[in-house]
């Protein structure tokens, strides 16, 4: 049995709007002002994939898998 777990924090589509509202990104998303931190494309409800803290800011990335990998490589490993 693998005793320790790599903790992947996630938000389900059910609670996406509530989550984005909590971290102050919902308005920007609705206005079309959110940009993928990796490829620079516009991020909306359809292609939003992850939000992460980076150098005191909240960055987001789109659902292109390469962008997701790029975002992960900038994050700090969390093991619980």
């Amino acid at each position, binding site marked *: 049995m693998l005793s320790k777990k*790599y903790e*992947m924090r996630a938000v389900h589509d059910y609670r996406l709007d509530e989550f984005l509202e*909590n971290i102050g990104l919902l308005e920007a998303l609705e206005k079309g002002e959110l940009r993928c931190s990796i490829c620079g494309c516009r991020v909306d409800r359809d292609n939003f994939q992850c*939000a992460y803290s980076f150098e*005191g800011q*909240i960055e987001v990335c789109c659902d292109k*898998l390469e962008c*997701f990998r790029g975002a992960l490589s900038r*994050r700090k490993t969390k093991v619980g």
Partner: protein
Amino acid sequence: MVDWFTVLITSIPWATIVSLIVYFFKNPEKAEKWYSILARILSYVSERSELAHVASDIQADINLSAKNINAGATEYVMPHGIKIEWAGETTREAFISDNDVVVRMRYHKNQAKNFLYAILGYVEEGMFPPARPHINEVVLKATQYHVARKIMTQRNRHSSLQIFYDEIYEPEKTTEPLLETYFKIIDSIDKDKLFEPVLLREFSDLGLEMIDRSPSKNVKNETKDFVHFLHAIAIKESGVDVPTTFARNKISVGIFLIGRAETYLTYGIEPYIHKIKEKHKEGINTLYLCARGPQLISAAKSIAIHLEKIGMFKKVGEFQQKTAFYERKNKAIIRIAMKSS
């Protein structure tokens, strides 16, 4: 009067229930898989069940495969399982100060994509964490992709695998041609059953040795050369000699291919022991005894016992597997890892 309570109690198959409880206690990933199936049924009427299904379905499959991979290598290859933690109420300030990252999971109809994001996140962070900075970048990426593909194949995640090929592997190999080269090389190494028991074990050991050291180009090159060394063995034709000793600064390995059943049947293990003693003089840290077929597997086990008895090597792992029937005439293989004493 019928004592209905007694009838009820005696009709419950207690032995089966107790066996199931013990089984699930020993195999929590399988219990989680059943839980995910149950949650899926309820997911159409309950939001909580939908969340439970999405998370437990991913966790069960990844954790089961991670355990399998570790069983073929060492527990340090995948030292952690995965847990999907649903983000609760948070604030912008808390999110930033916690250095948080939150990944979106879609409704279970899109579970193929959810699984792919989870597996990529997992191998990116959960596979031999201490070794990662010391492995050549392209080799590391090809190894990660191979493990991700292996898990998706093992768990019949064909839709996820298709998305992986279409959206990741194919576009990346056009911009990074070496990725395709190493992906194929690692595939050959795996086909010859040297992936988990040798390559992953050595990378994992390297991480433990280098845990508090800075990455260096020399070590990264060593990892790349080691992959080529194993590849040459994996693709070698019968009767062709290739180097079987890789004695470098950080990775120091000898692969001992136990061949010719007639030698074993006629002379026993002595000729092999003689050759291993010569190999030992080359200063290797780890010896891998490799054999195929029942007679030579038996020889490998006897050799391992003998080497331990004379105090030359200490057995640290054994990987035995039946290979696919169409691959070779001899259907079983063994890889025994032994550390120099």
